[in-house]
């Protein structure tokens, strides 16, 4: 304690030290190996060695552009869909839930206590060709008689939307829950109609929640491979499937690592642009 009293400036550093150590061991070091591995060449029998093989990146980008583009598209559509579904639902729970608020929130999260894989496999049953959903859609003519939902892009995007839904809903809930009701009263006192109140008061105040929710949904969705594998066909495969296959099946660690780095950089750039477009000051504060 004497040391701290003599060196009060050291306190914040000591406080963040565990966090920094955590980051160093579990993020910086693995990242270092990921990047160096991505510049290696060789094979599993001869061993891999660092040869600064930048063409790994070129190879990944040129060969797997469709999967990269598809990943971004699917993740974006799923994020928007999750936002459109979650916002009204969470708004209702946070503003009108009353005494049921906690229960509703638990109900919202409850399905997610079941493991990810089982939930995805459940969609195989829900969307099965011979299942009720497809049967009804065929009967009302939305689907052709030989049409199907499973093994289509729709199924993959639906799976992603569903699986990452809580990551959208919970940050939104926090933002909407904190909304001061008196602001809405003031807004209506000033003759704003409900639509205007929403656009001028609720939406801007909930924007940090929207921002957090879209990020926590989009980032894992972009790297997802389980949904494409279980609910899609090879034509729906995402960049995650490519990395998984390179890593585990072909055992080409350098290419797999290059794919992972590309994915990470794309997400970072995307997030930076997104944050800039929304305006970081409004988001943080």
């Amino acid at each position: 304690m004497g040391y701290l009293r003599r060196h009060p400036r050291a306190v914040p550093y000591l406080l963040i030290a565990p966090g920094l150590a955590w980051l160093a061991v579990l993020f910086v070091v693995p990242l270092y190996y990921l990047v160096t591995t991505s510049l290696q060449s060789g094979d599993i029998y001869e061993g891999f060695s660092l040869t600064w093989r930048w063409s790994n990146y070129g190879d990944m980008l040129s060969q797997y552009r469709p999967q990269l583009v598809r990943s971004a598209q699917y993740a974006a559509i799923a994020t928007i869909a999750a936002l459109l579904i979650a916002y009204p639902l969470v708004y209702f729970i946070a503003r009108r839930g009353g005494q049921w608020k906690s229960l509703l929130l638990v109900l919202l999260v409850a399905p997610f206590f079941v493991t990810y894989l089982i939930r995805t496999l459940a969609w195989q049953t829900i969307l099965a060709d011979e299942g009720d959903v497809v049967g009804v859609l065929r009967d009302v003519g939305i689907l052709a008689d030989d049409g199907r939902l499973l093994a289509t892009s729709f199924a993959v995007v639906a799976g992603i939307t569903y699986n990452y839904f809580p990551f959208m809903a919970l940050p939104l809930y926090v933002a909407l829950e904190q909304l001061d009701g008196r602001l809405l009263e003031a807004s209506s006192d000033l003759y704003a109609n409900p639509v205007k109140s929403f656009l001028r008061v609720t939406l801007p105040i909930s924007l940090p929640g929207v921002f957090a929710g879209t990020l926590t949904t989009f980032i894992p969705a972009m790297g997802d491979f389980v949904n494409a594998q279980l609910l899609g066909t090879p034509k729906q495969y995402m960049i995650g499937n490519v990395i998984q296959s390179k890593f585990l099946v072909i055992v080409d660690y350098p290419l797999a690592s290059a794919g992972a780095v590309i994915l990470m950089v794309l997400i970072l750039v995307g997030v930076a642009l997104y944050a800039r477009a929304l305006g970081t000051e409004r988001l943080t504060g």
Partner: protein
Amino acid sequence: MTEINRRQLLLRGAFGAGGLASLPAILAACGGSGGIEGQSAESDAAPASVDQTLAEKFVLSNWPLYIDIDEETKKSPTLEGFTAETGVPVEYIEDINSNEEFFGIVQGPLSQGQFVRDMAIPTGYAVVKLKDLGYLEQFDTASIPNLANISIPAPPWNEGFAYGVPWQSYMTGIAYNSSKIAEAPTVEELLTDPALKGKVTLLNSMNDTMGVLLQAQGYSSETINPDEFDATIEVLQKAVDDGQIRQFTGNDYTGPLSKGDLFACLAWSGDVIQLQADDPGLMFSIPETGGGIATDYMCILKGGSVYTSSVFANYVLDPARAAQLSLGINYISPVAASKAEAEKVDPDVASNQLIYPDQATLDKLQEFDPAVVNDPAYNEKFQAVIGA
């Protein structure tokens, strides 16, 4: 010997995880990326002397649905019997979903000399890969007198079954739902028949799918010619582009096939026999053009107990126990003498061509060229078609 080794390894692991003091060790562990110095030479030499003490515990990795289970006790008579006879408890882990995935899981620790499992039961070609990388211990064949019961030949990479002792063999052929299609489709119909469009899956393992497809094109899958391989890849690519192929699957074709989402698919014989118990309408056929056969081998991963593993291998190769195992899981036993034992218990199963195939059936099956399975160039071509 192994026991001490394992304890040392565990201790080392604990220190490694314990503190920053050993950060360099962690860094070294992270940096491992294949390439083992001098290990293959070392493991090629016959083991000088094997410590004849049993381990305190036997850790075994296997595929799902690949051990006999007593309906009432929900326990495996084979594993229980082994423990009763030797006093060694078995830690049984069903974590091999595909050879590739399992390899990916164990490759890192094995390349660092860490203990992973005593024994695993991958398919032949994966055993070749593990062996070539120096990740396997040799069996103590002197402790396995029952090796003499094995009725299938030892492949060239496995003289005297030193690296892999056969567990079971399986056939790759066409499964179909007879409530959807009247008779078994040919391989060509799977790939082109409009009536099957989008209702067909193939297997995501290259040896299974390409083995059947190559033969359907009139080529050999035992020794593969690169041009013939490429020509067959084109046929497959066209079927994928046309939307004929719904998915490439592992074991997960079973659900959609029973539900009728799939009319036909490439499948493994034992799976279909197990599914038939609930749905007699599911059929398995070996294509006239030829099917595949492959064998899964028990092998000892580096650092595992050689003696305990050898005793276990000897235990399951006894004809009566081999029959018990094959009756329980419906795959093909490497012990032909087990058929007589199986007949005593269940004559129907013993006469089933998928479990105890006769020579005429075996003649229709080819084992896929192991050199091709482990060649990244072929894998990349196949992976490119199946979408990743």
